[in-house]
């Protein structure tokens, strides 16, 4: 026998289920009057610095069908590459930028859409720059443990080519699953389309973090 390390075990994950919207976005699900607004859904304050962008797409299951009941959260650095919230020790992020957003996919089309700013470059643990990216976390009915992935930007070819995380993907044919394509909407706002495939051909790279 040896001494006990006396560590606890992480609580096991369980699916967010089909009614995750009741808890996460009650106003969206028709439960009004409990919270003034759904957390993570408020538009950006006008003071936020940086290039305004939209991020949109759908999540497809293994049959190619868009999922209509998922919830997506994103977490990202500000335009200068500093994280708001906690854990950032390199400086103070833009005080008006929350960094974290949450949206349900549309119940009919499965489309999600976030309006944010393009994040700056942040360092890898060895100091090399990581290309601008957004952390994406997906939960839904049928997903037993939340899926982490990253959105990289298609117009950042040089930065993406030097990114230490993208460089670790052995099967290079899978790298494009993490890269959003840029277009512009009618108002001239840059729109990055990032479709996520949970399974099968073109399966998105998901991370164990």
């Amino acid at each position: 026998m040896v001494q006990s390390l006396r560590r606890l075990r992480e609580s096991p994950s369980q699916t967010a289920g089909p009614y995750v919207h009741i808890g996460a976005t009650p106003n969206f699900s028709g439960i009004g009057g409990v919270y003034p607004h759904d957390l993570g859904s408020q538009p950006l304050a006008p003071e936020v610095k940086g290039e305004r962008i939209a991020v949109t797409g759908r999540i497809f299951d293994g049959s190619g069908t868009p999922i209509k009941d998922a919830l997506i959260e994103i977490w990202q650095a500000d335009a200068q590459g500093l994280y708001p919230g906690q854990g950032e020790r390199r400086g103070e992020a833009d005080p008006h930028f929350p960094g974290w957003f949450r949206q349900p996919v549309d119940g009919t089309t499965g489309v999600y859409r976030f309006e944010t700013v393009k994040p700056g470059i942040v360092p890898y643990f060895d100091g090399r720059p990581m290309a601008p990216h957004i952390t994406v976390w997906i939960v839904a009915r049928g997903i037993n443990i939340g899926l982490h992935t990253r959105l990289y930007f298609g117009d950042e070819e040089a930065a993406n080519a030097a990114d230490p995380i993208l460089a670790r993907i052995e099967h290079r044919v899978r790298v494009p699953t993490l890269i959003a394509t840029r277009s512009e909407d009618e108002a001239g706002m840059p729109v990055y389309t990032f479709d996520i495939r949970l399974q099968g051909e073109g399966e998105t790279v998901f991370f164990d973090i």
Partner: protein
Amino acid sequence: MRNENSSHQGGSFYQRDRSWHPPAFTPNYKTSVLRSPQKALLSLGNTISEMTGPVFGHDMLGPLDNDLILNYSQTGEPIGPRIIVHGQVLDEDARPVRGALVEFWQANAGGRYRHKKETYLAAIDPNFGGCGRTITDDEGRYWFRTIKPGPYPWPNGVNDWRPAHIHFSVFGHAFAQRLITQMYFEGDPMIWQCPIVMGIPSREAVERLVAALDREATLPMDTMVYKFDIVLRGRRSTLFENRMEGN
């Protein structure tokens, strides 16, 4: 507002034990079949993008956010056994996780959710919305008041029922700790018949999700109490990590 534990701030998180959690593919839970990635996860480890996370301040909470008996009351109180759920959010080193946003949602006492896609014949309760939230205190403690949810049938097998449960969403101090799970109730035989629960590989792990009836905390002639502790990933002490400047 900073929520870091001064002696352990900034370290990377312990590897998540994927054999302890339910795998993505659990065919007895049919919806997982087409929603489970088939390729191996890419081991990323922690970068600053995972070791940071949003902060939620107590000032965002309304006075009834942790009281599901009153926060959707229209004409009176909801029907059902009155309960309080309380517990601590800890990390794997048993340190309290303070300032953690905890959100919860559930069916009503008849097992019916207030949701447009829900078709179970049990009645909607006009006084029950089914959502709440709170933020842990300096000892990582949280509590909320609600009614005990009922079990309900769901379209999986031809006759599958979910045990009574409350859904939990927890934010720790970093995005790497993000967790959604469910709480079950002590003594419920349906826990062990549920395809979602049984996707968890070990009985020991399932038991971590079963809240104990906290008889001593019960409010006489008023409310039963269940205790449900939640454990998030622990993190290394920076004492042991030689991290480059700039991170």
